[in-house]
């Protein structure tokens, strides 16, 4: 059951990523906004990956859990964006 709820949240992340791609395709301004959001998210992701020990102690989770969360988020964004771009 735990795997099921993690999978559902992962799918939610994928769909949210597709939705952001859909929002970006509506207008050039929204595209710029989403691009800025994606860049900011990527910078935050990189910082979290580099400062994993500090961030894990700040969030009170283990380093391995933080790394798993970051990788799952990256995979969800990649899959969602890929599905939207390929459709």
């Amino acid at each position, binding site marked *: 059951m735990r795997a099921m709820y993690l999978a559902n*949240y992962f799918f939610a992340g994928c769909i949210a990523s597709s939705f952001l791609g859909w929002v970006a395709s509506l207008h050039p301004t929204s595209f710029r906004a989403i691009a800025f959001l994606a860049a900011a998210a990527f910078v935050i992701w990189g910082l979290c990956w580099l400062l994993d020990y500090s961030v894990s102690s700040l969030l009170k989770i283990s380093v391995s859990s933080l790394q798993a969360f970051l990788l799952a988020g990256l995979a969800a964004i990649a899959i969602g964006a890929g*599905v939207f771009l390929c*459709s």
Partner: protein
Amino acid sequence: MQLKMFVLSGAAVALWLVPLTALDKRIGWHKSMQGVTLCAAIACAVSAGNLAREQAELGEIELIKKRAITADVVDEISTSAYISQQQRQQEAELILTSPSVDVEESRKVLEAIYSSDLQDSASPNEHPDYPIYLEVCKSREAGKSTTWIVENILKMGGRKFSDGKVKLQTLLNQFEEEGK
């Protein structure tokens, strides 16, 4: 609850993939439909995730409950075993410390030991009247009268009563002299 969760998960995936592949992005209402279905898909996936999380938490609580119940049962069994062992030990100590509690039983045991000793020593007990003498002794200890002994043990009531009385006296004289 699980069925609902699976339906929501399936709906989320379907609402995510089907409109993106089947609908044309260049048509206005198709694009709008894609946006609506993506929102609905997010809602379905999050709802399914929440349901699954609740189920997982309930499962963990049930597991903890089972563990607690098992620990309680084990504790109760060990406690009752310990108490019964203590009770038995106390009873045994009581028996050992107060030998006069069951005088009748002790008397019987001693009597049995005594009679077996007598049998082993092969002295007056070889006499055919010796068991009758023992019964007479028991009856006298129990406070029975001479008449009762003659009538019930020697079976010499009625006309034979006077003979029985003589026989009783003879028996007593014979074995008491041998005992000395």
